[in-house]
């Protein structure tokens, strides 16, 4: 009982935070997470998460290692479906529809919600085929359309000039930063409206990191971007909204300005002043 009380208390705090921080215009909400609980076996990983992401914004989820932030991100495009022993309660509304509803087509959902992983993970194919893969699996056969789209996506990802002579070489011949931008190009090829990024710059050098952060800032026009990170400086630079996870609970979620200058919760303050 004590636990439940504690959770409810936290919930109220969270809701207040959000209400204060975001003007509650329903039309602008892209993803709304309601009472999300996620279990891995007997372990209660995510506890009563409530928050929403607005259209064309960049949101960063912060938190120490093992706090459930990556798992949270993966619930947004149902990548946890394949994790055996996992169980989910609650709702994730994308454009007002629960993505865990039986009528939802997971394939279409993942086309609409792109994902970029922590490690650059290009397929063992050519640069061109890596981007074209996303079009081919959705049944696009028109070669001219594919060629144009691949070029456009590579341009958006700021990679085309660097790889235009290597389009038909193996993707592993690119550098780490280029591979990660290739993965971003691959993710936007399927024309998603949401991009999930799981620590996209964790393994990259500072120059590549800066390039990718610039990309993210530009992408705001087209996509709703949700980034998981444990790099506080980066989050402060690029995000409109920031959330803080600790031990599977959402401690605080608000506009980045408020989040970093006037954190409401003591634990958030400790985290952003590097006390974890």
């Amino acid at each position: 009982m004590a636990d439940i009380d504690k959770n409810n208390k936290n919930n109220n705090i969270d809701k207040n935070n959000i209400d204060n921080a975001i003007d509650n215009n329903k039309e602008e909400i892209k993803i709304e997470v309601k009472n999300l609980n996620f279990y891995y076996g007997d372990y209660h990983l995510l506890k009563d998460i409530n928050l929403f992401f607005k259209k064309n914004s960049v949101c960063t989820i912060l938190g120490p290692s093992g706090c459930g932030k990556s798992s949270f991100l993966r619930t947004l495009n149902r990548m946890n479906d394949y994790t055996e022993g996992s169980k989910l309660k609650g709702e994730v509304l994308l454009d007002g529809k629960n993505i865990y509803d039986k009528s939802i087509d997971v394939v279409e959902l993942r086309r609409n919600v792109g994902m970029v992983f922590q490690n650059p993970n290009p397929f063992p194919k050519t640069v061109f085929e890596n981007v074209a893969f996303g079009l081919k699996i959705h049944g696009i056969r028109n070669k001219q359309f594919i060629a144009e789209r691949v070029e456009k996506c590579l341009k958006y990802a700021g990679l085309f000039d660097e790889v235009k002579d290597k389009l038909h070489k193996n993707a592993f011949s690119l550098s780490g930063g280029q591979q990660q931008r290739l993965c971003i190009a691959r993710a936007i090829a399927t024309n998603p409206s949401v991009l999930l990024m799981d620590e996209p710059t964790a393994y990259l050098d500072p120059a590549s990191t800066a390039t990718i952060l610039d990309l993210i800032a530009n992408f705001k026009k087209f996509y709703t971007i949700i980034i998981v990170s444990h790099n506080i400086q980066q989050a402060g630079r690029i995000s409109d909204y920031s959330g803080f996870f600790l031990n599977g609970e959402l401690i605080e979620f608000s506009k980045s300005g408020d989040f970093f200058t006037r954190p409401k919760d003591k634990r958030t303050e400790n985290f952003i002043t590097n006390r974890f």
Partner: protein
Amino acid sequence: MTEKENNKKTEDLGNYFPINKSYIKRKKIYNRIAYTFAALAFIIGAFPVFHIIYSALIIGYKYLNWNFISTLPSGFPIGAKGGILNAIIGDLYLVVIASCLAVPLGIGSGLYLSLFGKKRTNSIIRLLNELMIGIPSVVWGIMGFYIFSTNAGLGFHFGFSALAAGLTLGFIMTPIVTLLTEQAVNRIPVSYIEGALAMGATKWQATKSVIVKAAMGGIFTAVLLGVLNIIGQTAPLLFTNYYNTGMPTGVTGPGGAVGDLAMLIFIYIHEPSRILHYKAEAASVVLLFFVFALDIGMRLISWVTVKIFEML
């Protein structure tokens, strides 16, 4: 803790490092012992291979010529003249028939195990699969005889024939291909599969266009080891095919039986004829050569395929 205390602690850490000199001496000796043991184990393990090649060559060398592998056995007792063409062609029949069964079945179940199945069912299937690998080949032979050769089992009644033997060998080969395919796919980074799924690929799309390509080398090795295993099988053939000194006229029924190198060696060694004993040794050199050539050939094919798939 103040900064001063902190510094002091670091200093203490730097100065205090008790090195055990006698252990450092001993650990080098341990290293040498381990090295010697490993080398010795390899030499003892590899010795039979070299001994077989050496002794077979010494005895059988005078029969090793083009005539030996290009003509059918003749003379009295049969095989005293002529060569072993029947057995070479027969082996080809058996390997092709067995592979037709075992390659799709084995690769299919290997992919199922590593990608689609649930944990609990998988562990049961894996156990059964390992059990199948452990079944003695003579038992497979009896099973093949009952099911494929006679009309008592499932009513196939293929007689003593290439088809009955090939299918039996196929069932011996399947669990090996399954096991090695699963291992090959499991070696592929999860990130490939996740990357494909996250773009909206179905599991089959991810398997077909990413995983199979990435695991191609390993899958080739799986098939290769399966073939190498069945090419030397004798016991199953005793019950399902036996032996044919001529060419087969079909794959089932009378005239469907084929020659086989392992059976040829087995039969020739049992004949009271010195010439046949020598020829058996020569035939084992040929069998070893085929195994060797197959190994090199498949490795080459796998290497080339992997290179080609990388370009696609």
